[in-house]
């Protein structure tokens, strides 16, 4: 029971980091960046290549992966999303799906569909064993600890960043009213670029953590966690940073419990059913605020 709870929180923390990326982009650019999950996959491959093929030390490999993803995020935004700033959300969403497929298939051509065995990059602290000596020992792996700490740190850092810094305030202004923000002298395009850069950088961290915990890396690695993390962001209330965290962890726990007590095959179905229920009962999510529609 406790076992499942811990692995659920661990998985949930990864979802939370991905969901933070979704929520920031959604809050500011008002678009569902469908390709976010695939940026995670690219981050995983970048770290893998740097660590395994080039033999770089782990911190450098992670940094490299973050750099690649940040650049990728900015490039995607400039090339694919920026021309559609004034288009319907339907057009933007279809483009985002196109980008997602593009990344997956490029990865498929470069790295083939053979899964790569990802080395654990985050086991640098010792794991904790609970109930030592008794029959029911529970080991909290080092990956789990690092993942949870990383997600909390990221959430706190993001909260401070959006609350205290000038760019962070600009982000909130853009998310509230793009036109008014522009009139106040905020560079809307630059702000959106920064948001994408941060979101994609986080995706790289999420990629490394995800692949360290589940060490098979494939071109489709990112798509399912990406969709589930979006579910988490919706569950917590899209646009809300603590909401993304809460939603991510709840979803991770739900998934692990469903796997344990219902069926491994049906766990995805349970997770998605939860999304439908949440949207039916509270469409704004747990911590989201209701936005009045302006005519």
């Amino acid at each position, binding site marked *: 029971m406790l076992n499942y709870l811990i692995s659920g929180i661990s998985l949930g923390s990864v979802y939370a980091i991905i969901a933070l990326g979704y929520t920031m982009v*959604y809050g500011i650019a008002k*678009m*569902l960046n469908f390709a976010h999950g695939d940026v995670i996959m690219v981050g995983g491959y970048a770290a893998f290549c740097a660590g395994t093929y080039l033999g770089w030390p782990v911190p450098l490999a992670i940094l490299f992966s973050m750099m690649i993803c940040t650049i990728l995020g900015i490039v995607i935004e400039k090339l*694919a999303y920026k*021309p*559609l700033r*004034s*288009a*319907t*959300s*339907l*057009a*933007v*969403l*279809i*483009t985002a*799906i*196109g*980008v*997602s*497929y*593009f990344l*997956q*298939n*490029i990865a*498929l*051509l470069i790295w083939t569909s053979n899964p790569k065995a990802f080395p654990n990059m985050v086991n640098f602290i010792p794991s904790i064993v609970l109930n030592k000596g008794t029959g029911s020992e529970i080991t909290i792996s080092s990956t789990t600890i690092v993942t949870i700490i990383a997600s909390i740190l990221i959430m706190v850092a993001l909260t401070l960043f959006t609350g205290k810094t000038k760019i962070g305030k600009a982000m909130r202004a853009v998310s509230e009213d793009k036109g008014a923000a522009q009139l106040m002298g905020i560079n809307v395009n630059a702000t959106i670029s920064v948001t994408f850069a941060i979101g994609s950088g986080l995706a790289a961290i999420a990629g490394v953590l995800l692949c360290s915990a589940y060490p098979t890396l494939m071109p489709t690695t990112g*798509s399912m966690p990406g*969709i589930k993390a*979006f*579910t988490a962001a*919706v569950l917590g209330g899209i646009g809300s940073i603590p909401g993304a965290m809460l939603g991510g962890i709840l979803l991770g726990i739900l998934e692990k419990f469903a796997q344990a007590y219902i*069926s491994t*095959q*049906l766990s*995805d*179905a349970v997770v*998605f*059913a939860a*999304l*439908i229920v949440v*949207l*039916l009962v509270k*469409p704004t999510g747990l911590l989201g605020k209701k936005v009045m*529609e302006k*005519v």
Partner: protein
Amino acid sequence: MPNKNTFLGKANKNSLKGLINYGIIVVFFAVITIVKGAGGLSNALEGQLIPICAYIIMALSLNLVVGISGELSLGHAGFMSVGAFTGVIVAGAMKYHGVNANAPRLIVAIIVGAIFAGAAGILIGIPVLRLRGDYLAIVTLAFGEIIKNVLNCLYVGVDAKGLHFSVTDEVHMDMAANGTTLVRGPMGAVGISKASTFLAGIILIVLVLFVIQNLVNSRTGRAIMAIRDNRIAAEASGINVTKYKMIAFVTSAVIAGAAGALYALNYSTIVPKKFDFNTSILVLVFVVLGGIGNMTGSIIAAALLTVLPELFRQFQDYRMLVYAIVLILVMIATNNERIRAFWKKLTGVFSGKKGGAANE
């Protein structure tokens, strides 16, 4: 052009457009039949005929949601899947009970498949259609995944007493010894006796076209498009937004279910994984490439994009990559003012009316 915008002019234009679609289908059927009669059809291509019909119907169905209703459904393969599996179960049960003729089995399978897919559409539509835009897309996606997961653990068998279901394994179905297993979990529907024919596919396309075109040109269709163009204004004009969105969504689900039954009864086995997210995206590519809201475009794009990959097998690895690029480029191009103006000019030149006669 004063008379172009009058009511009569517009109605004539719409019915003309509709006739063109029927014409394309009839010509397509005639050409294929003649070529087939002359023995000029390769085996690979002949095997693609029914899938082409099914995908054309799927593209029309999705275009009703995306183009006419203006919402994005990413779970259309889920509705196709519901239609496919209920259709296969019904056809299999009929066969078991002594109905060997293909035509009645196919017709009943398509009808039942369509009804079940429509029921799924209502079920999913109730929560979803209160939402907007991106949420709807993600929930339909979730729905497609749920359907796939559930079908992956569904076992169905038939014996003299009727149908038996189980979600664990074949033994738990409590089936009599002389029964037949119809659906075997992740292995999918097995031992399907084929019932689909090309002619049936063509008839179904014509029927679907008839339904969609009459819906679009009716009062209901205009209400649906009014919601698409401006939801708030439509609501203020007294249009029941949820009701009309629901009509479009459920009609689309019903059509997708029919396509699924047609598709599944063309094969001897069909697995739930066949109807995954990739299939939904494939259909979306048909719709986007053919032009969102343009039924003729959907028909042509679905037919071409099903046949072309067969002809260019050596480029198979690049197929999805090309589709991805198509999605991005078409979206950017259709939303670019300059390209749009250029396109208007171009179509104006071709129809002999200079200066942007496009009256869309």
